[in-house]
């Protein structure tokens, strides 16, 4: 349970975030302000925002839990699973999205393929984000329950209330700027926890020695590369093919909540720089999220649920004041992930579903209102679906499982869409539909195909490969696009050297 000062810090943080978020209301006058921050934000704020919304609550609790169970190999998600993909996004993909004045990734797919592809991709992301919201709310409830003793439903509803209010009024400017504060708090709180945890276990060498002598199940805890027959969800083949080649790229290039941030940049240079800056910051994340989980093996051996490792470490290691700071940091990560999903889903729904299908040609204020109402509806959906995530053994794996259904197919059509002029609308559509169906099939019958516990990395790889092949095959059999239709949508080496200011 928290001491008085820690309660005060957490409450002050929550109220402060709310006030800060509401302050940005005055900068929202149009739908472009709400969804793209008026295209006026600097690279450093966007870079911090990308990192903090990505690591969020899931990494703090989930990755620490995975590090407790499986060791350092989970760190691959933030190194090879992020940095190369972010650089690829910065130099190749972001310039096309930014120059095209796009609001969403499905909007690009719609221009490159057809409206059906845009709609399917958008609906898929909306469904994923809605489920993701539930997982995030559940993650908050677990930590609040351990640290503050609040009932789960009370903590879910209070998180939803605070984040919902500032996202509703301030749009993406509030989302990104509160992320900057959250980033600073998270880094300071995270490094303090690592420092004190190292002190508690007697230094790195002492910790390695203790864990290595704890039994055969800890033999591979310090191997960043796991053998193919490992029982952990991170065999090297899955890390290389599923994570590095597919999921990382799909996440950094095809994830609306990440890419939308870059589209708020004041010019193309800032858009690219935000991703590059974010990739540099991302390299520190494993230190913050993985080490506390590892050190919990020594300090709290034998925990039944690995996801309890971080809350237990915070509770037992940190001094008064820093417990509050660290908890605020966790809460910051959670709020950041939630506000990103809310704003991105509102953007997807308004731009890809509402505007083309429900009410075309309305005035800008109308779409602004629709975006805000969608935010409120999503909050309710997220709160209502949060108990689903309690059925999964690890929060982080639950998210990866949801994502593996469609990350591979969407990345396959994005990749071919940019790099292969010959790909056609029917190629893209068939690859997307069959790829998602195949991923669901693999996940339902995973025991028959895979030996590891959670094969989400393999599922994303095989669904990507199938979508890639189908897209190429069907495209070769159908009518190709004209050069005019492809203008500004396919790769040209000029994009690497020229910046454009709008």
């Amino acid at each position, binding site marked *: 349970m928290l001491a008085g000062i820690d309660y*005060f810090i957490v409450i002050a943080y929550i109220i402060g975030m709310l006030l800060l978020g509401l302050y940005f209301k005055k900068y929202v006058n149009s739908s472009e302000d709400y969804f793209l921050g008026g295209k006026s934000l600097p690279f450093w704020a966007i870079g911090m925002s990308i990192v903090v919304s990505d690591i969020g609550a899931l990494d703090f609790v989930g990755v620490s839990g995975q590090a407790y169970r499986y060791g350092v190999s989970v760190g691959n998600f933030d190194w090879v699973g992020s940095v190369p993909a972010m650089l690829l996004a910065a130099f190749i993909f972001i310039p096309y999205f930014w120059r095209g004045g796009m609001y969403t990734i499905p909007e690009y797919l719609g221009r490159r393929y057809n409206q059906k592809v845009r709609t399917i991709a958008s609906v898929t992301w909306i469904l994923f984000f809605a489920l993701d919201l539930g997982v995030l709310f559940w993650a908050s409830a677990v930590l609040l329950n351990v640290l503050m003793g609040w009932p789960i439903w009370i903590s879910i509803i209070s998180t939803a209330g605070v984040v919902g209010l500032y996202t509703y009024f301030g749009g993406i400017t509030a989302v990104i700027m509160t992320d900057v504060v959250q980033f600073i*708090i998270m880094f300071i709180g995270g490094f303090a926890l690592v420092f004190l945890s190292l002190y508690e276990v007697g230094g790195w060498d002492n910790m390695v020695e203790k864990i290595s002598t704890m039994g055969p199940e800890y033999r591979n805890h310090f191997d960043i590369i796991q053998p193919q027959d490992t029982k952990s969800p991170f065999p090297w083949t899955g890390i290389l093919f599923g994570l590095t080649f597919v999921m990382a790229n799909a996440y950094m290039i095809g994830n609306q909540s990440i890419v939308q941030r870059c589209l708020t940049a004041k010019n193309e240079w800032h858009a690219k720089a935000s991703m590059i800056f974010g990739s540099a910051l991302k390299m520190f994340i494993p230190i913050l999220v993985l080490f506390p989980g590892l050190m919990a093996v020594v300090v709290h051996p034998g925990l039944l649920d690995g996801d309890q490792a971080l809350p237990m470490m915070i509770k037992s290691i940190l001094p008064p004041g*820093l417990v509050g700071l660290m908890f605020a940091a966790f809460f910051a990560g959670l709020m950041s992930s939630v506000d990103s999903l809310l704003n991105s889903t509102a953007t997807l729904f308004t731009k890809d579903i509402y505007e083309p299908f429900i009410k075309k040609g309305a005035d800008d204020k109308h779409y602004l209102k629709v975006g805000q109402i969608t935010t409120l509806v999503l909050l309710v959906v997220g709160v209502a679906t949060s108990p689903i995530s309690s059925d999964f053994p690890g929060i982080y794996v639950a998210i990866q499982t949801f994502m593996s259904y469609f990350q591979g197919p969407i990345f396959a059509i994005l990749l071919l869409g940019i790099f292969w002029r010959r790909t056609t609308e029917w190629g893209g559509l068939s690859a997307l539909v069959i790829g998602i169906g195949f991923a669901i099939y693999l996940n339902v019958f995973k025991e028959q195909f895979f030996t590891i516990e959670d094969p989400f990395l393999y599922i994303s790889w095989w669904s990507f490969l199938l979508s890639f092949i189908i897209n190429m095959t069907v495209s070769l059999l159908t009518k190709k696009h004209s050069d005019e239709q492809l203008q500004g949508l396919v790769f040209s080496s000029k994009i690497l050297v020229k910046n454009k200011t709008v």
Partner: protein
Amino acid sequence: MKPNEIDAGIKSAQINNALGVFIFIFGVIVLFAMIFTDTFIQHMTDMVAGLLLIAIGGGMIWRSRNIIKKLKANKE
């Protein structure tokens, strides 16, 4: 500088100022929490974390107020 660029600069500085105030206040609270710690290492950790937040927040306030002053002078 064009008037719209000045306005954008002022907006950006106002945002940074607000962020700075928040971080600064939070740093003061963490620094205050030092009095509740038991050991020297805990004491120092609270102090370093609090001072870091105060430095970052204070720096943001100082820089953004300077920019606002400069841009408003340019505007006039």
